[in-house]
């Protein structure tokens, strides 16, 4: 933690060339063609990502989905029930208040797992349970 603080503080006094070298050291790629202050910000961000972790996978997926603007997924609200009819039987999945997915009297890690158990094939869980909708073109 202290090291990250020092590194971030050090950025403020670096020259443009130093910054570019530092970028290469941190990311392993050539520095983008942006101003020094901009590069400082980007570099600080990259360092913090390495130290503290960046956007979660689900957030990245959400941003990518928003950028593509072809589909939209509602998160399964905590404390809700999802009902899906499959081959004539209605399957009720309960999302607990703590976000735990329960179906068939046991907990599951994701809706997709549940969907696979029900159908026997790989499905996107949100799509299978109607949380993912295709946006009108």
């Amino acid at each position, binding site marked *: 933690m202290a090291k990250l603080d020092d590194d*971030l503080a050090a*950025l403020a006094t670096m020259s443009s060339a130093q910054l570019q070298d530092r970028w290469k050291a941190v990311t392993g*790629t*050539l*520095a*983008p*063609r*942006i*101003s020094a202050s*901009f590069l*400082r*910000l*980007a570099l*600080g*961000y990259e360092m*913090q990502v390495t130290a*503290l*972790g*960046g*956007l*979660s996978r689900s*957030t990245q997926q*959400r*941003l990518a989905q*928003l*950028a593509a603007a072809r589909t939209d997924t509602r998160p399964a*609200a905590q*404390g*809700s*029930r999802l*009902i899906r009819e499959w081959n004539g039987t*209605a399957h009720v999945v309960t999302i607990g208040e703590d976000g735990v997915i329960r179906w068939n009297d046991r907990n599951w890690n994701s809706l997709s797992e549940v969907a696979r158990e029900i159908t026997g094939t790989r499905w996107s869980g949100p799509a299978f349970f109607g949380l993912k909708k295709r946006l009108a073109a």
Partner: protein
Amino acid sequence: MNRVRCAIYTRKSSEEGLEQAFNSLDAQREACAAYVLSQASEGWSALPDIYDDGGLSGGSLERPALQRLLADIAAGRVDIIVVYKVDRLTRSLLDFAKLVEVFDKAGVSFVSITQSFNTTTSMGRLTLNILLSFAQFEREVTAERIRDKIAASKAKGMWMGGVPPLGYRPDGRTLAIVEPHAEIVREIYRRYLNTGNVRLVVEQLAAERILAPVRHTSGGRAYGGIAFCRGQIYSILKSPIYIGEIAHREVRYKGQHQPIIDRATWDAVQARLDGNVPGERRATNIATTSLLAGLIVDEAGEPLVAAHACKGKVRYRYYVSRARQDGDPAKSIRLRAREIENAVVESIAAAFDDPLDLIARAGMSIAAADLQRIFAAAGVAAATMRQRSTTMMRSLVTKVMVGAHATDITMSSSAVAEQLATLWAGPKDATFTLTLPVRITRTGRTLRLIQNDGRAVAATPPDASIIKLLVKAHRWWARLRQGDITVRELAEAEGVVKSYVTRVTRLAFLSPAIVDDILAGRQRAELDAKRLALTADLPTRWSEQQETWGVTLQ
């Protein structure tokens, strides 16, 4: 078996042929008797009395046999009247309606043997329609007559009933002055002429403890005894009764009662009132109506009144304690309308999103077969609610109580069942409560609604414009990061200025926590797209960003 006593009624209008031994009357009578005999298994038997009207028109009811029959009906000696054809009874439709009414009253039915009189036939339906339209017509004529009578009486200056204006009591067909009350009315006129401001008049009266006197309705219910409100003062100031006139629609007539206010004073007051009219105010030219008006109360159960202020075309709406108008602002509440409305709308819509839970709360029992239908109905209901449907809000919600710990929404079980397309078996006025983890808190001088984790209640769903900016930022940063394009080239390609690209792209360096908050729509209230895009410098450290823009959890 019950004995059903049948009276056979016959009539013939023209004299000819009546002198014959077996005439049309006898023929009718025989046919009727045969019909009664055919119904003997039902217990029908013909009465020995002969109700025959020979040579009498069916245009009036002044027929001896018919009158005799009516007398016997009234005496309860007859169960069924049997006639050969409907027009034997009467040819006047109005009389027919009257007769049917008399029959109904006596519990007597009547049978026309050649025209089966039931509504499965066209004849029966026609008759019924005729009866109904005549009954309707008669009602309307009566109503017109009464309206004309009232208009004529008012033209004579009579008092035609209703709640007597303050200062008078009803006295037969006119009004008598009640002196102590009349003094209050004069006082109100005096004060209005002095101040020219109804609100000030109300405040003065309240301050001097001049209350609306207790009066009693004719039914003995007491009303009054509380402070005057503005509406009352307006109606007192506008009422022409006080200058001894009786108004009917737009016309004013000289009344028979004594005036309380002299005309000069009254005219001055009217001129003053007309000068103060603020202009057109119609519900139709309001972009946003106050959804919870009349439903929302504070913890003490005192209603919060919908109020607003305008700046140009923008309307800032609030729900305000009545107490604000009677002083004591310390205890009073003033809530931003949009916040509480969104919280309530969203929670009700969310409840409909989970109809199974809602059904459990409302204490309904449902059959498994209905599930499909209920879910469809619940989806529609949730969508309607999210469109801020006033009618739906008013039918579902009976009360919204905003408190210092939580907000309780009282909902009508039967209305919820109706929205879910199911039947409600319980009592009509059964209610259940949804509790929102939203409370009022006083920050400085203003009251805000906050959720129980201390965040401001989102006044809006996730802000689409901020999310757009974020997405744009990540796209542009991905392009720049490849290192083969400068900011200037990117700006040209995108058709924007260079500084905009720089400012927006910086948002790709917001801390993950803030990005998550923005995507979930729980960012700080003061964080909006404009602020984000225009912010001069973004701190590099996530901890510093969090201080400025993060959501602090209490």
